């Protein structure tokens, strides 16, 4: 009898000791929150919004799970699930950071490539302007086109500034607009030159 009582007490104490070790994963929470902040710093919200949202959802699920466990009687608490979710937030955040950086790089490259293409186009327009007949015929028209080229170039200078400031999406809008205008100027000049050649 005495042995039975002793055994029960021993199990009870062991159980209490064992379960009372279940502490809220404070360190993991802090780390996960820091990971989210790091992801924010690379503009994941802007460049990979869906992934960023999933990450925040995971953190929230983990935090609620922590509170769910906190609400339980101390002996019954288990933070394993929350800890696992928090660990996945950390792992996932690294992936999201990489994806955001990759997407950002893609947009940056797109902006830079478009800028290079439009710069080449403007150079072609300038070459056509230089090759255009210098006589009195159409002198005013050429001057007007020259004025437009100057405006397109100032637009491209703004694009460079935007790229340097990391505002790639706005830079793409601007460079596309400049590209359309440069293309129309090129067509205008080519048509005029072709017309002139046709008359000869």
């Amino acid at each position, binding site marked *: 009898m005495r042995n039975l009582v002793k055994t029960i007490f021993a199990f009870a104490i062991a159980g209490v000791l064992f379960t009372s070790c279940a502490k809220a994963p404070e360190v993991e929470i802090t780390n996960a929150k820091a990971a989210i902040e790091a992801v924010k710093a690379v503009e994941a919200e802007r460049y990979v919004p869906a992934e960023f949202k999933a990450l925040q959802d995971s953190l929230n699920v983990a935090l*609620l799970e922590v509170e769910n466990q906190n609400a339980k009687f101390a002996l019954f608490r288990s933070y394993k699930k929350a800890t696992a979710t928090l660990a996945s937030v950390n792992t996932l955040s690294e992936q999201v950071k990489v994806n955001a950086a990759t997407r950002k790089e893609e947009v940056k490259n797109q902006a830079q490539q478009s800028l290079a293409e439009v710069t080449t186009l403007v150079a072609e327009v300038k070459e056509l302007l230089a090759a255009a007949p210098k006589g009195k015929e159409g002198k005013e028209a050429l001057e007007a086109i020259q004025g*437009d080229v100057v405006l397109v170039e100032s637009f491209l200078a703004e694009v460079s500034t935007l790229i340097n400031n990391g505002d790639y999406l706005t830079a793409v*809008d601007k460079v596309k607009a400049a590209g359309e205008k440069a293309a129309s100027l090129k067509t205008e000049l080519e048509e005029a030159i072709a017309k002139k050649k046709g008359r000869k």
Partner: protein
Amino acid sequence: MKIKVNNLKSYPTSHYGKTTARSPMKKILFILLILLFLTISTFATLYYLAPKPPLSILEQLHRTIATAKEQEAEKYAPGLIKEAEIFFEGAKEALQKENEKTFFLRDYNTVIQLVESATAKATEATKKVTEDKQSLSESLQKKLIVVSHKIDHFDETYAHLPLNKKARKDFTNAKLKYLESKKAYERKAYLLVGNNLDEANKLISKSVDAAHDHLSSYFNDLPLWKRWHQETVEWSRKNGGTAIVVDKFAHMCYVYKGGKEIKRFNAELGPNWIGTKKYRGDKATPEGKYHVTKKKAGSQTIYYKALLINYPNEEDKIRYNKNVRNGSIPKRGIGNLIELHGGGGKGINWTEGCVALTNEDIDKLWNYVSTGTPITIVGSLRSLHEINGR
């Protein structure tokens, strides 16, 4: 003796004092077990009946806020989403606070109320975002159409006119800003569209207004032009002869015989063809009633064939002298040698002030014309309203 033995048998342990010690122990253990059972039962009942943390609504709230943010609530409804987040944080803090209490003393009503407030704010924010985005998208689309029409209108009506450099610069700037706005609109970055589009609208409106004002003052002479045209046609009708009318705005040269139009040709002018010729080298084509003074062909002209007119006439001379006196023009001479000649068909206004037709057309015209044939050059035969609808 028997009794003694019986007594001894009946109370064998009492003799050693063992039974008297074990019975109370059992009783105590039994009572303890009962108490333990009661405690556990009470604990279990209280635990079962204790309020549960409202985790599902908190999770739902997180999703609601996330959805609002995904739809750019931070840009379109910053106040509302901020309030929702404050309530959400409050709810989480209240939840933590309640969880720290003994389970049967917990009360999650505050948490629930805060969640409800946050949900209401986040839902309102989402609704506002949806409505604002929809209305912004519609209004921007309308604005884009308006600006696009203005640009097209300017392109068709004014871009080819000899306007000042500022008007052309404003027009090109407007077009660039419009294109940029359109790109931003296409990727639904509505908040970026507004400013650029407003600026594009301002610039194109300025260009259109400047061009219209310029033309309006030019078209003040419309009654005079119409009178000259009428007189020229009337002269042709009365004399049965050939008369020529050049409409600068239409870039057309009309040939009348017996008061009736018998031919029309495309014409090219000087680059500054809006306004009459005022002095030598202004690259403007004169306006007035003239006549052919000489027919030139072969080595007499570099433009295939030419019809020299009597520019400057008396009115031109009077105007020139008056302008020189009041200092509105430089004293460079009034200019001369204005002709209708060949060499045209370039598609631009390129002459020094003459009217150029194609060689084929000057050939056709050549046979109708002789020295003295009236040539009337007017700014336009149609009103500005007929031309640009304003």
